[in-house]
């Protein structure tokens, strides 16, 4: 355990050191300007790590900000980071669900229907060349004008971003059985549905789970970006935006950290699901 944690912790320690050095350096001008005339250099140095609106907050400031915005407000309050995280997580989860259904349906179509194989894959790849992150706020506004408000526009953006890894992963997975495994089914004169349920689908699981991890983080990114336009009242994206309006760097960084935590949580959830399947399969996916 210690042996495995050691490299991880040493990188973490190095990052912290770099961060503190950078924070002192970046906030030095600010601290000098705001300091009393008779402030000692030592006081100024310490002040770089205790600004209300630092250029780069120190790690401990972010932790304190997260702590207060998580624990010092009721979950229903607009100041609660938990509320914002939950709003974003809900949109991302809904988007991921859409992506899962869409990605799998597309993959099944591509693998089983020759015309779809020839036509669809190119469109799926082309779909990802649209800079959706750049135009997401616009899309949300347009959808809002069309009567689509609330969680749905956010989920659609999240789904649009995250269906791609699922679709491509599942196409690869459903095609992964080797000729012998497929011939075997033929010798049993198995139906198409049986081949799908007993060969293609179980074989694709080894491809679905890695794709799902990528898709989950993409869904979060999509949901956050979709919260950036003015309409959003809550969500990590709204929190980022209002933070940047008012120069609340601490609030921005707390929201960013919360987003990373959410992503870690999402990946951990996927891992947990995968672990369940691996158990069922005797230790291998």
């Amino acid at each position: 355990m210690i042996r495995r944690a050691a490299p991880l912790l040493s990188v973490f320690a190095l990052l912290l050191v770099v961060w503190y050095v950078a924070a002192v350096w970046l906030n030095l001008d600010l601290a000098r300007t705001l300091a009393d005339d008779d402030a000692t250099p030592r006081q100024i140095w310490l002040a770089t790590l205790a600004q209300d609106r630092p250029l780069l907050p120190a790690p401990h400031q972010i932790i304190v900000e997260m702590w207060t915005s998580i624990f010092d407000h009721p979950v229903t309050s607009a100041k609660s980071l938990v509320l914002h995280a939950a709003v974003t997580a809900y949109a991302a989860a809904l988007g991921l669900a859409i992506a899962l259904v869409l990605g799998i349906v597309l993959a099944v179509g591509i693998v089983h229907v020759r015309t779809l194989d020839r036509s669809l894959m190119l469109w799926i790849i082309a779909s990802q060349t649209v800079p959706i992150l750049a135009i997401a706020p616009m899309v949300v506004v347009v959808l809002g004008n069309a009567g689509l408000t609330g969680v749905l526009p956010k989920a659609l953006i999240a789904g649009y971003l995250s269906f791609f890894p699922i679709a491509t992963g599942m196409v690869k997975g459903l095609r992964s059985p080797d000729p012998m495994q497929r011939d075997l089914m033929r010798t049993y004169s198995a139906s198409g549905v049986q081949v799908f349920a007993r060969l293609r689908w179980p074989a694709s699981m080894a491809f679905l789970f890695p794709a799902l991890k990528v898709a989950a983080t993409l869904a979060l990114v999509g949901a956050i970006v979709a919260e950036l336009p003015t309409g959003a009242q809550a969500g990590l994206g709204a929190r980022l935006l209002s933070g940047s309006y008012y120069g609340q760097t601490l609030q921005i960084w707390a929201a960013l950290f919360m987003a990373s935590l959410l992503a870690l949580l999402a990946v951990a959830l996927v891992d947990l699901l995968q672990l369940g399947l691996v158990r069922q399969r005797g230790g291998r996916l």
Partner: protein
Amino acid sequence: MAVDLVMAPAAASARAAASIVVEAADLAIAFESGGQRTTALEGVSLAINRGSFVSLIGPSGCGKTTLLRAIADLEQPTSGRLTVNGMSPERARLERAYGYVFQAPALYPWRSVERNVMLPLEIMGMAAAERRQRAARYLDLVGLGEFRRRFPWQLSGGMQQRVSIARALSFEPALLLMDEPFGALDEITRDGLNLHLHQLWRSTGMTAVFVTHSIPEAVYLSTRIVVMSPRPGKVVEVIDVDLAAERDLDIRESPAFLRVAHRVREALRAGHSYD
């Protein structure tokens, strides 16, 4: 050269016809790829009797696997006639007339050994209790009863191939087609499996078609050996193995055994297998 084998003469009795499981007449199979035509099989005629153990032997490229796959309806004949149980190979496949053992075990890694053996039974719609019973019976038969909860990757190559044989036997087909099932195994494991397979065949009374390029293996297992030659694949000679029905591994050192092996080797040479 189409060797006249046990082709039933025109006046053959219905009884004799009924005892023929696989019959090929002037069979040819060619593959088309990139505008190039490769003749895999040409002018193959042969008949395989019920309850016999027939080996197809020959060097790589002689079409022995292609012939086996054609019997299984995994390849389509270009010309000639091929019947399995008096039906087209396709009808026979749809009626699940045969079990097939591939060169590799082709087990599904996400299924336990037991569930691999139950795979054909599930597809054929057998009740769960019966499935479990069958799996237990045939895993015991190949000596792997205690490994039923393991997963394929936890077994050795030889054990995996035995699982695949149990899987092919589980739905009790009257015809077992095997494509070099022991080709990838070491000689000691192979000896053991040969003995095992011989006893299995003896106890079930099924018809077996076995592709190999090992002469001792072919002689030991078979009642009849079909020697094939490459480019294009055809039958050179059919040799009856007149050894005792019940055989142990020691029989391989007997003069009778060596005589048959010698004949097979001569036939392979005549087919330019050593060029």
